[in-house]
């Protein structure tokens, strides 16, 4: 049988077997029919995200639609028979499931998309890169640092993929001038995906896993855009510095000077200027969240309105929005909501003896597991699967107060999901770097594994510091 067929059959088989098993076999006292369906759905989603028989966004949509058909108060008639009887469980609200498509973090991301799209359309990104790279001079090591810092800063507001593509395009003429055997070529190419992956951690809109984390964290306590940056930004800077030293060490340049010459100038006219101002004001409003009373999700919709009304984002541009990314996140939120609202999350936690486990062991295991998953599958899909479990566990785990408690646990796992960058398949930025043909998988693994593991350790240190100074 073909590989593709197996990948399709395994999730389906597991799904149907889990649905058909007698409820007692799960070993969770009091497990209801509805909760059993959630377990089956969770395994279906997990296997589909891991094996990818269908695109990952399609799995998300499947989760939402199956929840509506099998778990909601508007579900198919056969799935509702027995509702209200003992052991059936609580059905989810269909409106609630559908609302995941427009959950506040989705709106936050939509705002981010609009900003990024307008910036790219009016070449704000490339022109900023040109200006910001200049102070780094021509020393190869410093140019490398500049490249990483700028990639990281951009990927905080644009997608990691788009940032990587832009920076690699900027880099192409420089790489062409370098000697074919100069290891710095490898260093330069790798600096971009490494910078993008690390930079994505910096803001709530930097990368989709952050959005999912924000969803679960907001159930525990409010965390503003600025607060996220306050502890994530130092982490990004320190890890970036370490990654830079590692790249200089692994791939030292034999060149004395490297010149990055990007042509172009800032666009003028009322539309580009509107983009510049809206970009600046939106970021300012995000960072100053506490002062004006609007939360970051509300602020995110300001550029959406401004760019639509001014025609900066046209009807055609609207069609190029990555709905797949938004829906991928929606599905994750719906899966988490299913787990929590049916009561399955609470039951799982009570069925597993967490009290006997050392919380640090649980935390470190969860981080390593997440890092491993993120190296082999989509960062967002990893977060979709791991975060709801962590959110359920976080409440039951005591003894992590020195690391920020439940919020600390969620952040640690979220950061881990962004640190998967050892292989070309780990994330689209890595795939782009490998597509240049200048780096081998071994090179990428060397820097990716180092940065990943150092990043995990640094996460724990930063959480401790953040908790110590009272940020969490």
């Amino acid at each position, binding site marked *: 049988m073909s590989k593709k067929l197996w990948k399709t059959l395994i999730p389906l088989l597991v799904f149907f077997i889990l649905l058909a098993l007698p409820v007692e076999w799960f070993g969770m006292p009091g497990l209801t029919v509805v909760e059993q369906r959630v377990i089956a759905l969770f395994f279906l989603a997990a296997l589909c995200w891991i094996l990818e028989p269908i695109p990952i966004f399609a799995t998300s949509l499947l989760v939402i639609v199956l929840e509506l058909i099998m778990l909601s108060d508007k579900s198919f008639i056969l799935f509702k028979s027995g509702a209200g009887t003992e052991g059936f469980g609580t059905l989810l609200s269909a409106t609630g499931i559908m609302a995941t498509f427009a959950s506040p973090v989705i709106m936050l991301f939509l705002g981010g998309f609009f900003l990024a799209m307008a910036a790219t359309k009016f070449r704000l990104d490339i022109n900023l890169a040109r200006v910001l790279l200049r102070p780094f001079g021509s020393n190869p090591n410093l140019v490398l640092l500049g490249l990483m810092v700028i990639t990281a800063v951009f990927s905080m507001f644009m997608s990691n993929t*788009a940032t990587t*593509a832009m920076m690699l*395009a900027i880099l192409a003429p420089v790489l062409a001038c370098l000697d074919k055997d100069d290891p710095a070529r490898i260093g330069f190419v790798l600096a971009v995906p490494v910078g993008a992956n690390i930079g994505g951690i910096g803001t709530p809109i930097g990368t989709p896993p952050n959005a999912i984390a924000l969803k679960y964290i907001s159930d525990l306590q409010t965390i503003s855009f600025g607060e996220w940056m306050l502890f994530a930004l130092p982490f990004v800077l320190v890890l970036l510095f370490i990654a830079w030293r590692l790249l200089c060490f692994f791939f030292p340049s034999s060149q004395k000077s490297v010149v990055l010459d990007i042509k172009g100038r800032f666009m003028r006219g009322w539309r580009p200027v509107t983009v510049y101002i809206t970009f600046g004001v939106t970021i300012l409003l995000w960072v100053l969240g506490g002062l004006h009373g609007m939360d970051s999700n509300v602020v995110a919709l300001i550029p959406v309105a401004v760019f639509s009304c001014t025609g900066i984002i046209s009807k055609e541009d609207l069609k190029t929005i990555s709905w797949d990314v938004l829906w991928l996140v929606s599905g994750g939120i719906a899966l988490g909501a299913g787990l929590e609202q049916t009561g399955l999350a609470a039951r799982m936690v009570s069925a597993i003896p967490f009290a006997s486990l050392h919380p640090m062991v649980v935390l470190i295991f969860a981080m390593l597991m997440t890092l491993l998953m993120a190296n082999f599958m989509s960062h967002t899909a990893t977060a979709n699967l791991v975060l709801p479990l962590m959110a359920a566990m976080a409440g039951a785990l005591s003894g992590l107060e020195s690391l920020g408690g439940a919020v600390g646990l969620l952040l640690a796992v979220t950061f881990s999901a962004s640190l998967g960058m050892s292989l070309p398949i780990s994330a689209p930025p890595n795939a782009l770097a490998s597509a240049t*043909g200048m780096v081998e998988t071994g090179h990428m693994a060397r820097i990716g594994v180092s940065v990943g593991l150092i990043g995990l350790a640094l996460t724990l240190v930063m959480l401790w510091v953040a908790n110590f100074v009272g940020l969490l």
Partner: protein
Amino acid sequence: MEKLYIVCVDDQREVLASVVRDLNMFADWAVMEECESADEAEELMEDLAASDRPVALIVCDHIMPGMNGVDFLATLAADQRFPHLKKILLTGQATQKDTIEAVNKARIDYYLEKPWSAKELEDVVRLQLSHYLFDSGRFSMEYRALVTPSVLMERMQGRE
């Protein structure tokens, strides 16, 4: 990953064989179809369209018995079933009038002169397949080793 289709049309068997040989390196990503006349190719295109195959590229000679290359490519350019199809005219004997028609009516994407070099053909085909993948929305990272790096970086900008 779905394999793309490349259709090669030339009335001289040895030329056709040589084109296909030069394109053999794309075998992981594309299926090569050989036709010895425009009429044969027309029929093949019907079949491919009817079975929903992604026809990405046609490499076509101009002077052939029956319908000539430029006229054939012009019918394809007007055919709404192949909006993203890339068309390469591979010829050594086109007159200026033919060439003008090739640009204006057949809207060819590349004009390759015979005799061609294997490297040039490879680069051109890679470039055209890359643009086809993005234009048709079929691109996924599985094709990344096929796509010309500069096109990849260009077209991935502004993407999520």
